[in-house]
């Protein structure tokens, strides 16, 4: 039974990674940049819910909506102020700026909320599921996390395939110049992508903090980096890939924590990234992109 329990914990963690990875993969697929600050947007989303529920006494659901709004505004602002001026600049410059933004968010949170760990109240108040006469307990937050991430994954896939703005995203990710000639507002499309990615980050933040109820200014950075690993694992730019990569990574991390070494689990996760990039750089579901001279 303990194997099943570890597996389920892994799937729970993996669904959170999957949600974060969806944000990464959309932004990477369309703006062709690694939004390093994505993990820290999650942290801000967590703090927004924390302040809403604990300090202002809001209904958890209302707090989540507020948190999504905060993160969306934050994501679009970051894109407008820091990333848009650098469109067309070297990838190195964009990446360093993204690291700067990530650091900025962490330090703002550090100044505003302090470095002490905040005890996050679980916003999922459903009863836990008990199987085999209580031998295997599945936490309700696990079930909610998995369901929410599946719904979002399917919703996003439909959004990108069926709606006008989703198709505009695909066009921009294929060729910015050509998309612009076809009358697509490239900057606007990228801003929408950031908005979607950031609102997903808010949901991911809430679920992450509900499953692991401690909140610090650095809460988002490690899951953020691991979610990027997940996005690469699944094939960057691919929505189902990000989902599968996230789940697999969460399971691998939890199983290695349980059966190999808890100290080395991060090292194992990162080794997977290196192995994937060596063996199949495009990831599980990614496409080969030819480089033009």
């Amino acid at each position, binding site marked *: 039974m303990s194997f099943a329990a570890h597996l389920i914990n892994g799937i729970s963690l993996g669904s959170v990674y999957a949600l974060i990875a969806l944000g990464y993969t959309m932004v*990477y697929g369309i703006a062709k*940049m*690694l939004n390093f600050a994505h993990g820290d947007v999650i942290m801000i989303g967590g703090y927004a819910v924390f302040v809403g529920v604990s300090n202002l006494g809001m209904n958890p659901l209302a707090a989540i909506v507020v948190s999504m709004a905060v993160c969306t505004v934050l994501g679009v602002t970051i894109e407008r102020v*820091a990333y848009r*001026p*650098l*469109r*067309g*600049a*070297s*990838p*190195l*410059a964009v*990446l*360093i*700026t993204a*690291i*700067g*933004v990530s*650091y*900025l968010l*962490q*330090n*703002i949170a*550090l*100044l505003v909320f302090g470095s002490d760990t905040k005890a996050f109240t679980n916003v999922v108040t459903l009863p836990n599921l008990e199987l085999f006469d209580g031998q295997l307990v599945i936490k309700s937050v696990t079930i909610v996390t998995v369901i929410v991430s599946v719904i979002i994954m399917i919703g996003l896939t439909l959004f990108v395939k069926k709606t006008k703005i989703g198709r505009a995203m695909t066009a921009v990710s294929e060729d910015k110049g050509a998309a612009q000639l076809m009358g697509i507002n490239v900057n606007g499309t990228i801003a929408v992508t950031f908005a979607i990615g950031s609102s997903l980050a808010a949901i991911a933040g809430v679920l992450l903090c509900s499953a692991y109820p401690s909140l610090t200014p650095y809460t988002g*950075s490690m899951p953020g*980096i691991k979610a*990027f*690993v997940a996005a*690469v694992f699944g094939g960057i730019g691919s929505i189902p890939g990000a989902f599968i990569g996230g789940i697999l990574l969460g399971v691998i991390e939890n199983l290695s924590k349980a059966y190999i*070494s808890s*100290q*080395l689990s*991060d*090292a194992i996760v*990162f*080794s997977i*990234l*290196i192995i994937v*990039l*060596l063996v199949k*750089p495009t990831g599980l579901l990614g496409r080969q992109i030819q*480089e033009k*001279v």
Partner: protein
Amino acid sequence: MKTKAGRLNKTTKNDLITYGMVILAYIIVQILVSTGHVSSLIQGLLVPFCTYAIVAVALNLTVGILGELSIGHAGFMCVGAFTSAVFSLAFKQTMPAGPRFLIALLIGAASAALVGFLVGIPVLRLRGDYLAIVTLAFGEIIKNIVNALYLGVDSQGIHFTMKDALSLNMEEDGLVLIKGAQGVTGTPNDSNFTVGVVLLIVTLVIVLNFIHSRTGRAVMAIRDNRIAAESIGINVTKYKLIAFTLSASLAGVAGVLYAHNLSTLNALPKNFGYNMSILILVFVVLGGIGNIRGSIIAAVLLTLLPEVLRGLSDYRMLIYSVVLIAMMIFNWSPNVIFFRKRLQQRLTAGKKTGKEEA
């Protein structure tokens, strides 16, 4: 007839200014120290100045000359620091300080170079964002492993384990060198400001000569246009690996200096984690990407300022991050570059017409 200084070309002159700056700073500091004008706080910072200057120069070789972003340089520093500290601790009683430090230095640099080479083989096949994230991942792996590693030595040889000190199965007289998360304690204090400055100058000689060598020019050609460089027969992987390994090994040297300045060495997020890698990157960006002298100045200034302005220490990282973003946008944004060019043109045009009127 041209004077001697006039015959020196621009790069040689530039390099001489860099060396001169370091030597002059060293002399001034030594005079100030001997006349008692330097507080103990600043004296404690002298070796860190050199450490950070060396690692900043090392990273600038990767970022500025090779044109690839590494956010795992603290990992190479960590390798250099731990291997050299283990050596120095093991031979603390049996060797005199001078040769011991020299060998420790070589061991630190060589092991960092070896790790850099091994990491470089897979990593340098990637580009841009992937490379950055893999170096970051690698830095975290190193930190994790070092934190979990127990290493001891006795008459039976070397023992190591990932579990705890007891499972080393050591003899009574054995010496535990690395105690997991507690790290290495009792490293001899072999480094001082003079050693630091000498190492900094050696680093500068290596890096500046490398940049102006045939190899260095090949590396810069790859940076500027990889496909064009490949098409004229430059072996991209080979030259990238050379530059990356050299950069890693110099970061290892900085680690050696770091380890021998402290009696306790452990791998914390603060000194060898992601934060440290970012801090080194801030030095490089603030000093100017590709500008070796700038890296040294920025490393020294940014190490000195927070200590002098204690009141700002809460805002230190906040200010760094704002500076990082502002510098990148000011220097790299296509619109800002265009605006700056136009402004410059208008200013020079204004001067010219002004002269004509006069």
